């Protein structure tokens, strides 16, 4: 785990494009599509499902070693601070904290088989596939001696809220050619650009990658309110107050009518 945390630090300093240069002319290539490339958040939004499907295009007959597919869906990255409580003078107090400059608010890894059996660790850190590698870098120098429990806590807490997930065996692969993954997006989804990545794995090595964006956005009333709150906050504040006062007066008047009759 310490090595892994170090890898996050070092890799975080490198530009992303340099790490993910795919090998030239792969013998097997991914042809894929998504069931939808945008998700609309309406008032009744209660999560969504995206089907990521495709086929493997090859010039020569497949090799003898087994073929695997990994699908990841990654949400917009934001800074987050992980804090740790300790008992001081009988009460629980926040003592240590680790600031992570950039961690996706949503990250799902779906695979055909258990991740550690199909993916070489070096390839994992190169392409940043597994959940711990989704975090980019620490913000400033760490204040604590051991950051590992903090990064583990971030993953654990996000997993509890269904925001980080490792779905081993969730990708179905037929005849080493056709694959399909159903990815569930939870109800507590944030607006933004989500990135889908598909990796073709043989002998633990990445053979080919495929990327496609998913746009998650608020629509209708949700969008109107959100924009008003950020673009005309004073008007929005007055509107909230007017609503509160009107509701307060309305209920008072209604109850007076009720009591009179």
């Amino acid at each position, binding site marked *: 785990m310490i090595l892994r945390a170090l890898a996050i630090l070092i890799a975080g300093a490198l530009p992303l494009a340099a790490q993910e240069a795919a090998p030239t002319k792969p013998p097997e290539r991914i042809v894929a599509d998504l069931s939808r490339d945008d998700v609309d958040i309406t*008032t*009744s*939004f*209660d*999560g969504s499902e995206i089907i990521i499907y495709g086929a493997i295009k090859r010039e020569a007959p497949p090799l003898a070693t087994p073929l695997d597919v990994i699908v990841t869906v990654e949400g917009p990255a*934001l*800074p*987050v*601070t*992980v*804090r*740790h*409580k*300790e008992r001081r003078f*009988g*009460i*629980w*107090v*926040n003592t240590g*904290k680790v*600031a992570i*400059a950039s961690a996706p608010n949503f990250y799902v890894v779906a695979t055909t088989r258990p991740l550690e059996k199909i993916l070489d660790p070096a390839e994992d850190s190169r392409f940043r596939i597994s959940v711990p590698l989704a975090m980019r870098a620490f*913000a400033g120098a760490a204040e604590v001696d051991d950051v590992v*429990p*903090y990064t583990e*806590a*971030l993953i*654990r*807490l996000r997993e509890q809220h269904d925001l980080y997930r490792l779905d081993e065996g969730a990708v179905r692969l037929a005849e080493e050619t056709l694959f399909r993954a159903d990815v569930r997006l939870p*109800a*507590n*989804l*944030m607006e933004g650009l989500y990135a889908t990545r598909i990796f073709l794995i043989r002998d633990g090595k990445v053979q080919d990658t495929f990327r496609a964006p998913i746009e998650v956005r*608020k629509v209708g*009333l*949700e*969008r109107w*309110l*959100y924009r008003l*709150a950020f673009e005309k*906050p*004073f008007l*929005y*504040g*007055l*509107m*909230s*107050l007017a609503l*509160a*006062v009107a*509701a*307060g*007066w*309305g*209920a*008072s008047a*209604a*109850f*007076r009518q009720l*009591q009179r009759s």
Partner: protein
Amino acid sequence: MQIYLPIAEVAVNAFALVGLGGVVGLMSGLFGVGGGFLITPLLFFIGIPPAIAVATGANQVVASSFSALLSHVKRKSVDFRMGWVLLAGGLVGSSIGVFFFNILSRLGQVDLVVQLCYVIFLGLIGAMMLQESVRALRRSRKSGPIKPMRRNQHGWVHRGPFKIKFRASGLYISVIPVLLVGAAVGILGALMGVGGGFIMVPAMIYLLGMPTKVVIGTSLFQITFLSAYTTLMHAVSLNTVDIMLAVLLIIGGVVGAQIGTTLGAKLRAEQLRILLALLVLAVCGKLGLDLVLKPDDLYSLTPGVIG
């Protein structure tokens, strides 16, 4: 029925929020407290981000206290002059409180200070009120008809300069202690993210010597304006008011507040004070236990990078 909240960016059960608003509104009508000390922790509990819970809670408090205030105006149980003086002190105190809040968050222990504030003040006030009101109830039972509680006629509040006649409260006292009470409540309210009704009500009864029936209406008057100010500040500077969440809470809140005021008119003042004291002690106990008991997870996440 799930509803997606545009600012909080989470989906929540609409009926649960209406119910939550209703319970808090009931407290508001019954005791003249805004209910901020109840609604903010309850919203945390159902997964609303803290900053949004505090700001939207303030907006809901405006609705339920305004609704309850109208009924009190009708019953003529509001001392407007007292309300304005308290509010003036409150706005000054609130600004001082925000200043302290910023200093504490730079030091990194604002959560702990807020929690300790809650436990200490709720504990002290709850215990004081319970002891006093139980004694008053016993006394009134023994001597049959309810005698008006004898307030100390010439305490420190009567000696200062700038005396004003507060007719609705039947008081002729110096304006300085009233301003000080308003400011102190404003400071604590801003620090703890609440309207401060639960501090204001006992302060009016025990420090200023106001009669309980007028206290509730006057406290509601002051809370309505102070939380409207807070809501606007949060909306403008932090964009943390979620109007959809507010609507759901308000629907429950205004109905609850009306039921609360109707119920409150039927209960005796001592009984009301005992109930409020028990409620305050219960919240205090819960927060105290949170400080002492080992939390479920020793780690917690806060969005953004904290300096």
